[in-house]
């Protein structure tokens, strides 16, 4: 880190924290809008249209509406857990951003256990779902939370295992060093393509996105674990899901797609045309969010392409396909690294 005075360091850190939080929270309405708009066009509709230019302000209107809605607390709930659950889902989802480097200068902290911290913090989010399902005292909520926790812990193993190949290349758990290592060698998506695919599939399941959205399967469970939540508490679950999606996309970008590094060939061409200040301060963020945005589009694209899995298929995929493949990937990487 730069050698500045303590006051300035603290100030800078605070500014970074505020910036990261703004990005994370503002991304939710953006993502919601993108999702609705893209969904609309995939289905030959317009999507949101009236609030703001081409409907961009629609998510904000929704948020305001949710804030002003009546906050219903059902009679049979376990009050403490019921109120804590949205917080338990919300905080871990945002906490993953504490170690994600958006660019060389925009990161809250660079600790040498970054990857482990992300995985452990994001798995804490399961507590939020379990607490919500249990405290609601509602059959749909309980079933939804059971399903979703079983699903998330099942895919977490594949998720964790698919990262190991990356670590064998990067020799570090720090996300900044992982990106730097990719600058020295190549994007890890190339030597770790299998790991990349596995991570992407597991990330879809971890964020309960279609085709893995069984916890919410509207036709069976109404809305899953948050069926008894209203107003802002519902909004918090909603937000934590989108924030979790964003953080998974960010982690994917950092681990496999070189983080803030420019695209090869096109990158240097574009950067050659721009002044040095912009290249140093703005372009890393641009590349980063370009990649993340690509993933967001991919999320929506997949949503309208694949049908939902059955629960037994889902568990079988996680345990019988992804897990062995991820282990195989570890062996394969080991063999390749040793023979080189």
């Amino acid at each position, binding site marked *: 880190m730069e050698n500045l005075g303590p006051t300035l360091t603290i100030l800078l*850190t*605070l500014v*970074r*924290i505020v910036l*990261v*939080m703004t990005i994370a929270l503002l991304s939710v309405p953006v993502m919601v809008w993108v999702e609705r708009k893209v969904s609309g066009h995939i289905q030959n509709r317009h999507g949101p249209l009236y609030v703001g230019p081409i409907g961009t302000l629609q998510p904000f209107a929704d948020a305001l509406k*949710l*804030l*002003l*809605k*009546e906050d219903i*607390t*059902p*009679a*049979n709930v376990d009050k403490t857990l019921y*109120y804590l659950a*949205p917080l338990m889902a*919300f905080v871990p989802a945002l*906490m993953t951003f*504490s*170690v994600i480097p958006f660019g060389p200068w925009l990161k809250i*902290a*660079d*600790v040498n256990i970054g*990857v*482990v*911290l992300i995985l452990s913090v994001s798995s804490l989010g399961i507590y939020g779902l379990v607490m919500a399902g*249990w405290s*609601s*005292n509602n*059959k*749909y909520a*309980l079933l939804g939370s059971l399903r979703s926790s*079983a699903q998330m*812990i*099942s895919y*977490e193993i594949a998720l964790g*295992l698919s990262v*190991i190949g990356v*670590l*064998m290349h990067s*020799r*570090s*758990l720090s996300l900044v060093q992982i990106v730097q290592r990719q600058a020295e060698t190549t994007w890890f998506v190339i030597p770790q393509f299998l790991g990349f695919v596995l991570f992407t599939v597991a990330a879809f399941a971890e964020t309960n996105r279609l085709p893995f959205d069984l916890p919410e399967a509207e036709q069976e469970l*109404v809305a899953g674990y948050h069926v*008894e939540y209203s*107003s*802002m*508490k519902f909004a*918090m679950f909603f937000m934590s899901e989108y924030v979790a999606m964003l953080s998974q996309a960010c982690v994917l970008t950092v681990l496999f797609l070189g983080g803030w590094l420019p695209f090869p060939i096109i990158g240097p061409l574009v950067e050659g045309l721009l002044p040095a200040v912009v290249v140093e301060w703005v372009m890393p963020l641009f590349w980063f969010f370009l990649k993340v945005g690509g993933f967001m589009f991919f999320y929506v694209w997949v949503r309208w392409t694949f049908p939902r899995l059955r*629960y*037994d298929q889902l*568990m*079988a995929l996680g*345990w*019988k396909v992804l897990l062995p493949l991820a*282990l195989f990937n570890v*062996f394969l990487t*080991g063999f390749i690294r*040793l023979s080189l």
Partner: protein
Amino acid sequence: MQEELILGYLPILVFLIIVTCVGAGMIIASALIGRKNPNSEKISTYECGMVPIKDARQRFDVRFYLIAMLFILFDIEVVFLYPWAVLFDRFNPVIFGFIEMVLFIVILLFGYIYIWRKGVLSWS
């Protein structure tokens, strides 16, 4: 050295505090701002409009417990693999570190095959 290490984590703690405050603030704000107009129908448990049948907290499938136990087993395995993966090509002799991990995983694979053949992983 030690101080630097702890200082590196300080921003994370600050972030945690801020995030928790924001989250708690949202819950409190909605509780204060939103209208309050409860009636007995509105605050009853939702069950597609029916009067709820019995308590929701009933026994559920034992397989959820099994999955949770397997998760603990395999997640610990993953955690063991992390430091090994980072130090992977710094063992001396290199091949020995790899063989040790292969043995470790093979032993776990025995357990994996066992649960598979015993039908723990099939949900139909």
